[in-house]
């Protein structure tokens, strides 16, 4: 992780194009275009949200090495999307209004010429039903993004939520 921070981030057109890719992803999610969103993932993609455990500063880990809130492949993401497209995904019926705010985007080269590591912060606002109270999810993201012709594909979405005790009845949205 330290190595990443001291490395010089990618600048110019590549950086802008990767940032746009993240923004387009947010737009697809917030407009509930889940099939469009799924098409932004490579066939070998992984989508992971680790379980966070509240621990002392010197503990070996705080994000569980094997505990996951999401541990998805493209196949299981496809299942989730097809579920949302039925009339019976009650957790999202009526759908949550979400807004993904993506900031602090930094892109780094990797050992593969056509793949970049893109770090970002993501704040998701979620409003459900007629509840006056909204849910906020704050996450740190570390994505692996691959060149695909003129565009990009997610190879790995890794998002770590900042809360150890998550203040939401479910995670029926994507971060």
């Amino acid at each position, binding site marked *: 992780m330290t190595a990443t921070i001291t490395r010089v981030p990618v600048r110019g057109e590549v950086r802008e194009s990767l940032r746009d890719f993240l923004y387009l992803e947010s737009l697809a999610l917030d407009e509930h275009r889940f099939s469009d969103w799924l098409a932004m993932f490579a066939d070998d993609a992984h989508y992971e949200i680790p379980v966070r455990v*509240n621990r002392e500063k010197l*503990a070996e880990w705080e994000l569980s090495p*094997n*505990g*996951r*809130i999401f541990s998805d492949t493209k196949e299981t993401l496809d299942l*989730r999307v097809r579920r949302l497209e039925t009339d019976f995904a009650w957790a999202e019926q009526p759908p949550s209004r979400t807004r993904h705010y993506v900031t602090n985007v930094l892109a780094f080269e990797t050992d593969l010429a056509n793949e970049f590591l893109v770090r970002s912060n993501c704040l998701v606002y979620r409003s459900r039903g007629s509840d006056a109270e909204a849910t906020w999810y704050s996450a740190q993201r570390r994505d692996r993004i691959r060149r695909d012709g003129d565009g990009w594909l997610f190879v790995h979405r890794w998002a770590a939520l900042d809360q150890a005790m998550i203040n939401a*009845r479910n*995670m029926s949205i994507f971060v």
Partner: protein
Amino acid sequence: MTQTTLGVDALLDRARTSIPAGRVPIRIFNDQEIFEREQRNVFGKAWCFLAHTSEIPKPGDYVVRSIANNSIIVARDEHGDVRANLNMCRHRGNQMCKSEMGNASHFRCSYHGWVYKNSGELVGVPYFQEGYETKLNRQEWSLINVRTDQYGGLIFGTLDPDAPSLEEYLGGFQFYLDMYLKQSPGGSEVFAPPEHWTAKVNWKICTENFTGDGYHTAVTHQFAVELGYFPSSGSTHYQGWAVNIPGKGHGIGLGHTPGLAPFAGFPDDLVTTIGRSLTPEQMEVFSKTRTAVGSVFPNLSFLIQPFSVKPGEAGVRFCTMRLWHPVGPDQIEMWSWCLVPVDATDEYKQAAYDAYTLAFGQAGTFEQDDFENWTNVTRQAGSSLARDADFPYLMGLDGKVLDDWPGPGEAVSPYVTDRNFRNQWATWLSYMLDEV
């Protein structure tokens, strides 16, 4: 504002006759007075789940858990014994452990520096000679101990020093718990730390659902039936058995799919060895069970069932254990674990865990819909117009208890019935009335 016609005492008194007759007061699912009495009478008396032994395998390992409003350190001491103590310094009440888990031989308070062994014994007091002179007897000021007992890797605690033994409390339900706890001859273990989240839900709605609510599956989880991800259909889903332990509140639903292979979803080597740690009677029951969804009263639940991302295939059999910890009349802290067979390969354990996260856990496609409904049930159950009304628990009221059932408790068929719930709420009532 609608006036309540019944006080809590009168409501509970009326429930003595109404629950066995199949009527449960709506108000018990969202009411401040009921909640306060539950904290004292139910969670102050019952055996409550704390941790699984595989979460604290080595001396010094600890986790921090709760019973009612008590934060409790559950630690394995230097002798290998499990010890549970209130997470509060005896000197001025500061919280001892601020992390959820870790390993420590001693705990040191961050206020005035009192030091305790992980067993709870006070061993270090700053200015012991100079300040206290000889007035402080360290043995008198250990952390406040919580009585514990174990079954099959489950560590339970009770706040009631006079509570009956855990064995008596479980009352034969151990027979069914083994389906989750003895998934292989070497037993079961926790795969990863639990997920936890908060929800505006009353704990009883969750416990009841996991005491065998086969009725909700095809509707709440209709997407799964629709897309072919559920190994039973709307037309066969009622099949199976419901078993409860009368007077204890524990119950389990055993869903059966005709033609499904015994232990479908387990790897072959596990299917051939699983019988080693089970009785023939358990094998008879478990081998014909597709889904087993059960609860230990008051708030610990389990589910085991096969799940495949390819409709029609057996997939893997995942198992979840969950604790619905009440923190208010309309709020829980939810703890969710995945239990895997100790003797399975790492690949199988990972596959079972992945199936668990896809189906249950906070992002689980089944869990999501349950919590949406339960949040709404909780809110509506607080409606002033509903305060003196009941819910019908009339299914299976005339059901005949099977006389050739191989396991303990009272078993009925089909799986879709309110029988387990009537027993659960009648037991709850006896705690609430202090008649246990």
